Structures are given as C-alpha cells and as structure tokens.
C-alpha cells in the first residue's frame, strides 16, 4: 500500500537558517508526491509536486524537494527560513484506484521559526 512517513513531528530553526523537513514514501509504483503547507486556521496550500519529471522540484516561497528513489525519500528544503514559514507541513502521496486518485497525508511536521 502507498503511504508516506514524516520523520519529525516538530522542527525548530532560527530565522535565516536552512530548513529540512523529512519524508519517506512507500509505493509499489512510481509515485506522485506533494508537499502542502497549512497555516493556523487556514486551508492547505500546495508548495510543490513531483510527477516523474525532474527529480529536483522547485516550489513556491523558495522551497524545493528532491525525489530520491534509492532512498525512497522526498525531503523538503529551504535555504533560509523566514518567520512567515512557521506552519504545519504535510507530505502527501496520491493513491489511484479505478482511475481516480485520493491523497494520503503524512502526520505532519510543525515548523517553528525563532527570531
């Protein structure tokens, strides 16, 4: 069964330092993977998606993720954290059945950014 595991429930960084949010996936076929961000009391916003094209995916707000098949990982990075990056981040995989897809979410990683 397809699934994603977010390896850290909470990550704390200082403003201006790099961000690394880790995600491992399990899939019997080449997966489509996403990273979403959720700010408090807000809906989910797509940061980036991987769909079997380039393994390094660039997203919005300076985020990027690298798909590594050998490590079954899809970690999210940003060179320099900003206070506005503080939020909940979800790694997501699409599971297809009967030609329709459903999103399977990880448990989420809370990113704290300290001044």
């Amino acid at each position, binding site marked *: 069964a397809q699934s994603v595991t977010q390896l850290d429930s909470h990550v704390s960084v200082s403003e201006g330092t790099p961000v690394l949010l880790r995600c491992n996936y399990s899939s019997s076929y080449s997966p489509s993977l996403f990273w979403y961000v959720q700010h408090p009391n807000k809906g989910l*916003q797509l940061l980036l998606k991987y769909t079997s094209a380039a393994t390094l995916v660039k997203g919005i707000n300076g985020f990027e993720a690298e798909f590594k098949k050998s490590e079954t990982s899809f970690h999210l990075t940003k060179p320099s954290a900003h206070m506005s990056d503080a939020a909940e981040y979800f790694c997501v995989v699409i599971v297809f059945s009967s030609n329709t897809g459903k999103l399977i979410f990880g448990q989420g990683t809370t990113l704290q950014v300290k001044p």
Partner: protein
Amino acid sequence: DAGVTQSPTHLIKTRGQQVTLRCSPKSGHDTVSWYQQALGQGPQFIFQYYEEEERQRGNFPDRFSGHQFPNYSSELNVNALLLGDSALYLCASSFGSGYTFGSGTRLTVV
C-alpha cells in the same frame, strides 16, 4: 477565479444530531473529495465524487454520506453525530492531478 468555497466556516452541534456541510469547487474542476482533519493529525480521506457518483471511499462508517450535484458542488452529511466527529472538514476539488483545497468547516460536537 474563485477557489474552493466551503460553508459554513464553523458549526456547533449536539451529539446525535445530523449535519450538512457544503462545498463549491474551483471553476473547471469536476471532482470533489472530502477529508477529515482531527486536531493534531493529517487529513484523512472520507470519499470522492465524480459525475455525481461516489468513486472512492475511505475507512469511514455509513453515517458519513455525500452527494454531488450537476454543477459539481457537493455536500457531506454526517448522521448521529459523535463527540469524535469534532474536526476540521476539508473539501478538495480537482481536475486530473491538480487539487485545490477549501479553508474547511470546523465542526464541534458537544
């Protein structure tokens, strides 16, 4: 171009009551999915509607039902509410693999 619109934004219900949540998809999207997000958890897939039919269903009891209308909008109905149904309910519309989420309906069952 409006995104996904959900109503109401907040709702308080009593155990045993029934509730209906509504979702208007993004323009051009023909598929609607519903997710339940309990506090501190990732969203869990409830079901998906396409061409007015339920196409996929997650691990939720029959108390959870839905409907999709010809204009692609959708409703989520929950009967016999339990305290554990308290959550943020998210609607996502899609066309192909592009998903857009609404801001959700916060349901509190007391």
